[in-house]
């Protein structure tokens, strides 16, 4: 073998292996879409590549069993509430932690780090007791949002962003007599706007995909986010439907579409390696 061919072969192999892996990873998504468009479940190998007979019946079917629009609105309110809380209060906290010297700052930052390693399962039962039994917030948006209201990872990311801004900028604005809020609003925020988008996108997928907590606290069907109503359909109703998989897969496509769509549209913001190091480094 010539030196060039030894160098080229592993490279080619790497591509073959990576593409095979990528197709394996994507196949369930393709199959989800195909299955949601077939009137009869066809589980043969040929059935994965249908040439005709595609229909939207399954979407009509799932919509008649689960109020798709209502559930999507609930998911949207839940997710929107978390994003709003995170952006407003998270930015304030991140800014204070990065640029202001005040009593308790060190303690608070230690808590930011600590909270990230507390597993949610330990808090599950007491939060349920407090929020559902204590405050009577079962079947309410507030109860759904409360445990996620300020995303701690986002606070950490905001702090990193504000830390990276040059000190001179702040010194100059303070000499000009700008108050701290004004400094945040008109100096710091415009500079971190692209980073803000990244944090919003990362915050979005948490509540949109969250199942356990809204499942625990919503018993009324008209308050359930789509993840919960689809899960209830899978575990209770599916056995009695004519084409249960078709309807489940149609619901799954509706649930997956917004998150996957946002991800594809803004993939640069999700998959930049410096965010990876910023979040967990």
């Amino acid at each position: 073998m010539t030196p060039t061919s030894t160098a080229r072969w592993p490279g080619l192999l790497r591509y073959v292996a990576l593409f095979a892996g990528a197709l394996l990873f994507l196949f369930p998504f393709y199959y989800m879409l195909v299955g949601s468009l077939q009137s009869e479940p066809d589980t043969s190998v040929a059935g994965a590549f249908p040439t005709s007979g595609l229909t939207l019946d399954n979407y009509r079917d799932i919509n008649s069993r689960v109020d798709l629009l209502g559930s999507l609105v609930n998911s949207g309110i839940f997710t929107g509430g978390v994003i709003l809380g995170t952006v407003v209060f998270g930015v304030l906290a991140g800014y204070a932690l990065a640029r202001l010297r005040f009593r308790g700052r060190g303690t608070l930052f230690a808590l930011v780090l600590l909270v990230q390693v507390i597993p949610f399962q330990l808090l599950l039962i007491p939060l349920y007791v407090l929020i559902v039994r204590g405050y009577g917030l079962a079947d309410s948006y507030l109860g759904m949002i409360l445990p996620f209201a300020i995303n701690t990872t986002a606070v950490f990311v905001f702090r990193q962003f504000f830390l990276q801004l040059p000190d001179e900028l702040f010194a100059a604005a303070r000499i000009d007599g700008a108050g701290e809020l004004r400094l945040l609003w008109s100096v710091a925020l415009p500079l971190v706007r692209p980073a803000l988008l990244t944090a919003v996108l990362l915050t979005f997928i948490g509540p949109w995909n969250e199942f356990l907590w809204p499942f625990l606290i919503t018993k009324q069907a008209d308050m359930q986010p789509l993840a919960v109503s689809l899960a209830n359909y899978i575990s209770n109703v599916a056995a009695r439907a004519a084409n249960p998989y078709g309807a489940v897969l149609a619901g799954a496509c509706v649930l997956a579409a917004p998150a996957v769509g946002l991800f594809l549209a803004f993939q640069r913001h999700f998959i930049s390696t410096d965010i990876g190091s910023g979040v967990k480094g």
Partner: protein
Amino acid sequence: MSTADTAAAPVTGAAARSPRPAGRGRVTAVLGRHPVGMVLAAPYAVFIAVVFAYPLGFAVWMSFHDYFFAAPGAAVDRPFVGLDNYRAVLADPAVRQSFGNIGIFLVINVPLTTVLALLLAVALNRVVHARTFLRVAFYVPYVTASVAVVGVWLFLFNSDGLVNSVLGPLAPDPSWLVNAGLAMPVIAVFVVWKQLGFFILLYLAALQNVPRELYESASVDGAGWWRRFRSVTVPAVRPATALVVILATITGANLFTEPYLLTGGGGPNGASASPVLVMYQRGIQQGQPDVAAAIGVLLVIGVLIISWVNRRLIERD
């Protein structure tokens, strides 16, 4: 600190003429240079106290008391019962089985996640063409709701699903999700697939910090691909490996959605029940929050021990 300031003020005599600077100095000493920071950070501090600190203490307190649901406002006695809840938990066969199950899950999931994430990250790091497509492909499952992808895995792995029709006579009987020996491994593989993109990203970030000269000098020394991987890459990303192992363990211990939906509530016969699923059944379905809180405390202690041992092992060799 503040007493020293007040004592010092009259000596300089400045306080007598203009009290403001001294007052301000005292405020700075007590509240810091930018007291407004306390106001800005207050909502987050309150949030931590209400949603993390208080429930954390409450969980531990509950696990040592006879706690039960009562009508709102009713004054009920909730006596201290020592370790009774823990004894009940440890004697409960379903709980013991669920801890065994999560052990099986972690033994399959964590090594598979770590090895695959590192290998794929190394390969992706050297890729020039189709870079975006490849990264997106591995990351998409991570951004998709578990509930949605569980739907398609149910379809793929049911007894006459695509996987079995590809395998033909090799298909396991009973089928994957209703087979006591296979249900938990399938869930473990599902979670590897679901989370891998995130861990690849952590490794990709770590790989950016490996000095190129190390690879170059290894190549000059005649090290092949495997030698370079073993003696340059693996040691260089060790901190990332520790993080991946710990995060994968914590995520795995949180397992709930997959056994609840994929195997119809931890079936067959509890062979895929996870501790969080049993917590939900005991605490909320059967109204024993004290027992459930004890399960949670034991689970977290278990996770802490595993994380600590892993960290020692990874950082030593």
